[in-house]
């Protein structure tokens, strides 16, 4: 049962900068937990603290119930996939994968069996005699995965492993990582700044901002009920529209203390009727972004100037400057208070 437990973890640098400000996360056994947030939010630092590459200023990290604060990375029984893959350039693919096992004194036959098995899983069988510089980006990424897999560790750590790949390959590898993680049943912590990656991979999604956890939970639940304006703007692409309630026509009660009103681009309706208690706002079209199956209309409200995006099916043919009437049903509205918290 390799659950990973973070209790009020803090990271303070000697210059007084606090990168992680008291983060508590409980990752259940076999779960894939994704840390997502903008750059500089402390997600990578947190991952490196779990790996043992950064010291823990305060708080406690435990793996399988054992506190590992003072345990070296070597003895934590973890494997990590780095953003730049960190393959050993002077070793062949085979040796890259075998290195960790050799260091731990695994018998030769066992090493060979495990490396070949992992290579087969990742379709690297024909590349075992190559050196990293002779591989493509996608192949290097696979070798990095293979190096993590052969070790059969308690925990996998992924530090933005797909950010150096092109979009198509990234999509493929995303599915593959998810499949591998399921099959192997290894508790994983995955860091990314890509919210799409986060949404599709996570069993447990943790949205971080400025060293703190903004919201943690099931990805779809976070999507449907963002706990703050930050989460609402970060999760979902294009992001949620946020407007001043006073600039819109609202039929229905406004919650007490409401300072911002949000609705997702796909919940906006251009023509037809929104249900009782819905929102209606006038906007001027700035431009249309056709992406094929759907189009995104970028518009701004004449009153207050708030920018909005509306998703419509198919190809919208409209001239910039057209006046739109945007509606959204009451049950799809998100209310936030002045501090940015969900009401």
């Amino acid at each position, binding site marked *: 049962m390799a659950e990973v437990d973070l209790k009020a973890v803090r990271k303070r640098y000697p210059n007084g900068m606090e990168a992680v400000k008291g983060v508590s996360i409980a990752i259940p056994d076999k779960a894939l937990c994704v840390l997502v947030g903008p750059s500089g939010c402390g997600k990578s630092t947190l991952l490196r603290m779990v790996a043992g*590459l950064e010291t823990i200023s305060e708080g406690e990290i435990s793996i399988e119930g054992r506190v590992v604060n003072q345990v070296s*990375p*070597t003895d934590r029984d973890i494997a990590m996939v780095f953003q730049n893959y960190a*393959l050993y*350039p*002077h070793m062949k693919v085979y040796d890259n994968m075998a*290195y*960790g096992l050799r260091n731990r004194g695994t018998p030769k036959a066992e090493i060979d069996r495990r490396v070949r098995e992992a290579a087969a899983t990742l379709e690297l069988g024909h590349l075992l005699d190559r050196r990293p510089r002779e591989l493509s980006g996608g192949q290097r990424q696979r070798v990095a995965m293979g190096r993590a897999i052969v070790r059969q560790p308690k925990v996998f750590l992924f530090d933005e492993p797909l950010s150096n790949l092109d979009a198509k390959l990234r999509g493929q590898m995303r599915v593959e990582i998810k499949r591998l993680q399921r099959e192997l049943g290894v508790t994983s912590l995955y860091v990314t700044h890509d919210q799409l990656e986060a949404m599709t991979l996570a069993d447990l999604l943790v949205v971080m901002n400025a060293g703190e956890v903004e919201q943690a939970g099931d990805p779809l639940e976070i999507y449907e009920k963002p706990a703050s304006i930050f989460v609402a703007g970060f999760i979902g692409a294009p992001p949620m529209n946020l407007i001043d309630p006073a600039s819109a026509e609202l039929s229905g009660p406004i919650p007490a203390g409401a300072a911002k009103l949000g609705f997702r681009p796909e919940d906006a309706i251009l023509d037809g009727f929104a249900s009782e208690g819905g929102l209606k706002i006038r906007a001027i079209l700035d431009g249309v972004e056709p992406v094929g199956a759907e189009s995104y209309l970028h518009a701004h409200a004449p009153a207050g100037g708030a920018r909005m995006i509306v998703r419509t099916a198919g190809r919208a043919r409209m001239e910039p400057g057209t006046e739109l009437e945007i509606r959204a049903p009451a049950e799809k509205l998100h209310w936030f208070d002045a501090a940015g918290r969900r009401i």
Partner: protein
Amino acid sequence: MSGRVVFPNKLLPYLLLAPQLAITAVFFYWPASQALKQSMQREDPFGLQTTFVGLANFRRVLADPNYLNSVKVTAVFSLSTAFLALALALPLAVMAEKVVRGKGIYRTLLIWPYAVAPAIAGMLWLFLFNPAMGTFSYLLRANGVAWDPLLKDGQAMGLVVAAAAWKQISYNFLFFVAGLQAIPRSLIEAAAIDGASGPKRFWTIVFPLLAPTTFFLLVVNTVYAFFDTFGVIHAVTQGGPGKATETLVYKVYNDGFVNLQLGSSAAQSVILMGVVILLTAIQFRYVERKVHYG
């Protein structure tokens, strides 16, 4: 063809190159051709007559047991100096990398010896280890070591090797520090996670990745020990005791300017020139095809 500059005047490019060409001609080609000419001549004792003798000087030099001894001395001296300078610079660079506070100060202090002229470096070591007045000689003798580099071959060799290597450590240190900095941190971290302890990490990851730097330095240090250590040897032992520290370069000087055997000295320097060309070729070939990792 882009980036190619066309001069309006046909003469101008040659004029611009002229100073450099003149220096090379005056300080290299002309003396080299003189040496080549002299190496095939014999001069009478009074310097009044020279006779062309073909390759006789070379034959005599290569058959001379003193010359062969000098080759052996040079080999021992150069390899020891290069090895010692590299072996000491590497741990220093590795440790200096680990320093958190005052990294710059450590580095600067470790680079300083390079600014010391070879002869001065030699004098420093001579004073420290002079059997009559050296501080370290006193300490060594007090601890029961019969220290006398003026009489003992091995000790004299040890002293010149130490002085020559000491000066080169700084240079090597600088390159090793640069080499270490070029190794991505994530590789070291990956190795740590892969269960490699400190020393194992060094020998299986860091050292192989430093190989290009180490090889480059090996060549440079050998060339240095061959040709740039005249000052050290001249200041410390003058090739003695006997001919125990007489390297090829020192013998060229001794035979030519002290014993006035110009033909033999010229032949020796031509041989040396061949060695330099060979070593430089190896170095260039290497630098051109620098081992590219990653």
